[in-house]
């Protein structure tokens, strides 16, 4: 009996010494706040993008676009409900068709105060793809829209054939005053084909999108396929961003989801929004997102599918591609997607969302990570993330795939929009001293 007790104690001590964690569970419980349902948006909504247009928040939920007022009330409890934005009519004979679930907004950007969306609609026999503009979205009353409030920029109709056919998809990217349009065609092998492959891709840029023609003839074409010596697939644009000084782009020629050939992904740079050069100093990888944190010095962050960040720091605010030198900061093996500067909340810190891999069908990510950039010579991941103990850790947000963030600096509200886990808002509630997350 004594021998058993002694052996048990030895086992317990060994276990004790090998399994000490860095995070206090009791502290997490002590600080946990109940996640409030602060609004009426579906908890499983898939929000791909979000903008602030004047006094309204607008979120792209795919088949529907949602909006609510930013609410000028200083009392957070009086938040307006989310409503569905009235979307433009198409050329269908039966306009109500475009409210069906086969309609989707593929992208949405706010440019010079105008809201641009690209939509694809299917009525059973034809596919209509278009780009539409809502003028002065930052000043009008979004809640008083009519379908006629929208202007048609481009609209292309493809008849669905019993044999193979192509349909068009437009993806929009905003970079300061420039609108980039990645025009893709998807090839369907037959009328019953539920999947499609990209058969062609072209990139255009314009600073006057309201005037472009249906065939994009008066937009500036940008050749992105020439960056690949051997092209087996069309080149699509994954991301375009700008700091105002530099324009950055991620392009992929590997349209399969596993990114098995990292040489088929490129990072490009431009200073004039149209002429791009390849950034050759960055290691080969399947790049996911790119973010220029600041320009003096120039701090560039590029994420890959392995959860690593490639970091370039350059004293020159407009470094040439040859000036860039990258170091790697590793992390968990997740996609890092969606950077947001939270310096107004935590000085010199950036948060970046995580996403599940595309090919396993999962919607589970790992929430977000926080990057401490206070010492540029030693950039590190924070041990505890922003709002960690105040219900981030205990909420579903900590296991969500995050598509991106929106920070309303005027109202000090941070939004995190997710893949199928809804929309989250972080605020400092009335009569409280710490910020906390709630579900919209």
């Amino acid at each position, binding site marked *: *009996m*004594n021998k*058993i*007790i002694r052996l*048990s*104690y030895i086992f*317990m001590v060994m*276990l*004790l010494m*090998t*399994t*000490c*964690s*860095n*995070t*206090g*569970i*009791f*502290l*997490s*419980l*002590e600080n*946990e*706040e*109940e*996640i409030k349902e602060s609004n009426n948006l579906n908890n499983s909504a898939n929000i791909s993008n979000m903008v602030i247009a004047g006094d309204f928040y607008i979120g792209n939920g795919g088949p529907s676009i949602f909006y609510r007022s930013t609410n000028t009330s200083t009392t957070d409890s009086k938040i307006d409900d989310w409503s569905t934005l009235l979307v433009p009519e198409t050329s269908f004979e039966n306009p109500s068709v475009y409210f069906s679930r086969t309609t989707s907004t593929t992208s949405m950007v706010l440019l010079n105060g105008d809201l641009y969306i690209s939509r694809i609609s299917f009525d059973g026999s034809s596919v209509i793809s278009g780009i539409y503009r809502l003028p002065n979205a930052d000043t009008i009353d979004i809640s008083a829209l009519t379908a006629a409030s929208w202007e048609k920029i481009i609209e292309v109709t493809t008849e669905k054939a019993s044999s193979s056919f192509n349909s068009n998809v437009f993806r929009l990217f905003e970079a300061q005053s420039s609108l980039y349009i990645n025009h893709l065609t998807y090839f369907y092998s037959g009328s019953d084909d539920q999947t499609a492959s990209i058969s062609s891709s072209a990139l255009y840029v314009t600073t006057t999108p309201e005037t472009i023609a249906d065939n994009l003839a008066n937009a500036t074409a940008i050749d992105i396929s020439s960056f690949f010596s051997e092209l087996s697939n069309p080149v699509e644009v994954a991301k375009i961003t700008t700091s105002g000084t530099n324009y950055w782009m991620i392009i992929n020629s590997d349209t399969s989801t596993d990114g098995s050939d990292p040489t088929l992904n490129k990072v490009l740079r431009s200073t004039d929004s149209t002429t791009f050069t390849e950034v050759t100093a960055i290691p080969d990888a399947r790049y996911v997102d790119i973010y220029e944190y600041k320009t003096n010095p120039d701090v560039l962050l590029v994420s890959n599918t392995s959860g690593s960040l490639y970091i370039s720091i350059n004293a020159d605010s407009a470094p040439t591609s040859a000036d860039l030198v990258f170091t790697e900061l590793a992390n968990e093996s997740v996609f890092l997607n969606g950077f947001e500067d939270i310096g107004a909340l935590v000085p010199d810190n950036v948060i970046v969302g995580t996403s599940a891999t595309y090919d396993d069908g999962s919607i589970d990510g790992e929430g977000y990570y926080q990057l401490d950039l206070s010492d540029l010579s030693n950039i590190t991941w924070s*041990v505890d993330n922003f709002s960690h103990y105040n*219900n981030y*850790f*205990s*909420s579903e947000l*900590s296991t969500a795939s995050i598509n991106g963030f929106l920070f309303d600096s005027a109202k000090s509200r941070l939004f995190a929009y997710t893949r199928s886990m809804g929309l989250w808002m972080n605020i400092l509630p009335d009569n409280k001293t710490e910020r906390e997350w709630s579900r919209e």
Partner: protein
Amino acid sequence: MTDRKKLVFTALLFIILCMVPLYAQNSDNEEPEEMQKVDLYTLGDQCFSINAGLFIPLFFMDFSPEDGSSAVASTNLTLGGTGSLAYEAYLSNHIKLGLEIGGMFAYSPNMNPFFMVPITAKFGYEFHFGQFSLPIYIGTGINIITYKDLTNVQFLMKPGISLYYNYNSNWSFGGNLVWWVAPEIIPSSSSQNRVGNFLDVTISAQYHF
């Protein structure tokens, strides 16, 4: 025999007769005046216990609170459930030593489950009166704490008291009241250190063999 000699002889005889009962107590053939006590347990006796009942989260203690903060904070946990199995061996009629493994569950404000699995060695002293036994004991060992995707293994102490009714020579039934003193030490961040205090109230069945 003279009268004086008769008187002395009678007195001596009387004294001798009075001293007889003093010697009668040591005789093996004499009956005892009262029944001897029989020990309930002895070295080598063993028992198994199964316990189940209510888990009551009390409070967390912070021994180094920040300025203005209280040292005592709510656990934010719901009432929960607990259960355990114990094996004990008697070293004497009153002293026993044993091992216990158990578990508990409760829920956080966002209904996330919280678990603890204690594995402890127990040392106890048991009082007996009539058909009842009253052990008081202390368990020490490790506590495996799990919450969401976090797991910590920490030291644990569980002082407790029980009351059993000895139904027969094999079975006893009763209840336990145990205080869990569960420190959580985070070596990399002392500000996160806490001592969890919990109470479990359980009913128990004990089998002796």
